[in-house]
C-alpha cells in the first residue's frame, strides 16, 4: 500500500517534471524540472531496490550532468526561446505525436510484459553485486565505455577551448 503510494507520488512528480520540461520556455526551468524528474526517478529506483543506481542517478545525473546543463545555460545566458516559423508545425506534429507515441509505447509495454506485481525492493542492487557484475561479466563493455569517456573528455576540451591561442582553456566538467 505504502509502496503504491510512494510509486504514485514519485511517478506523479516524474510526469509533472517531464510535462513541465515541455511547457516551460526558459531552458533553466526545463533543466530544473528535469532535475526533478531525475530525483523522483531515483526514488522509483529505490522502490525497485536499485539503491546503488538511485545514488548514482542522483550523483551523476542530477549532480553532474544537469549541473553542466545549468552551467552552460548560465554561461551562454540563454534567454526565453522565441516563437519561430515551424514551431506551429512542430506543435501540430509534436503533440499528437506525443500522445500517439506514449499510447503506443505504453500499450506495447503492457501488451508485451507479464502483468506480475513487483514487491518493494524486489531486486536488491547493492554496490557489491553490481560491481561484481561490472568487473566480471561486463568487463569488456566497461573498458570500452571508459575509452568512450576518455574520448568524450578530449573532444569536449578540444571543442570548448577558445579558438584563439592566447586564451586559457576552459573546462566544463
Amino acid at each position, binding site marked *: 500500500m505504502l509502496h503504491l503510494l510512494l510509486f504514485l507520488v514519485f511517478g506523479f512528480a516524474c510526469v509533472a517534471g517531464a510535462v513541465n520540461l515541455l511547457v516551460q520556455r526558459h531552458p533553466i526551468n526545463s533543466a530544473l524540472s528535469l532535475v526533478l524528474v531525475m530525483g523522483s526517478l531515483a526514488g522509483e529506483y529505490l522502490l525497485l531496490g536499485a539503491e546503488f543506481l538511485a545514488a548514482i542517478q542522483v550523483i551523476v545525473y542530477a549532480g553532474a550532468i544537469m549541473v553542466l546543463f545549468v552551467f552552460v545555460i548560465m554561461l551562454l545566458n540563454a534567454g526565453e526561446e522565441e516563437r519561430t516559423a515551424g514551431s506551429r508545425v512542430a506543435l501540430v506534429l509534436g503533440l499528437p505525436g506525443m500522445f500517439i507515441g506514449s499510447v503506443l509505447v505504453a500499450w506495447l509495454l503492457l501488451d508485451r*510484459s507479464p502483468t506480475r506485481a513487483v514487491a518493494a525492493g524486489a531486486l536488491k542492487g547493492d554496490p557489491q553485486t553490481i560491481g561484481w557484475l561490472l568487473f566480471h561479466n561486463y568487463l569488456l563493455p566497461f573498458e570500452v565505455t571508459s575509452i568512450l569517456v576518455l574520448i568524450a573528455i578530449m573532444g569536449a576540451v578540444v571543442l570548448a577551448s577558445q579558438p584563439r591561442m592566447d586564451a586559457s582553456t576552459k573546462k566544463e566538467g
Partner: protein
Amino acid sequence: MVPLSFYLVLSGILFACGVTGFLIKRNIIAIFMSIELMLNGVNLSFVAFAAQWGALSGQVFVFFVMVVAAAEAAVGLAIIIAVFRTRETLNVDYVNLLKL
C-alpha cells in the same frame, strides 16, 4: 506491490515526453535535455525489467547508459558552446547552414 506495467507505462510516458520535447523544442539545450529525458525513461524500464526477471544485468545496463549519457552531455554541451560562439544563438531554427 505495484504491477510491473505501472513502471512500464511511466517509462513510456517519460519517453514520449522526451520525444515530443525533442520535436517541439527550439532551444538546443532543451533538445538535449529531452534526449536525457528519453534515456531516463528507458533506464526506468531497464530497472523495472531487472526487478521483474530478478536479473541485475538490467541495472548494470542502466549504469552504462548513465556513463554514455555523461559523455554525450560533455561533448554535446561543448558543441553547443562552439555553435553559440559562431552563431550567437541557441535557436536551432537559425542554425540551418552546414558551415560552423
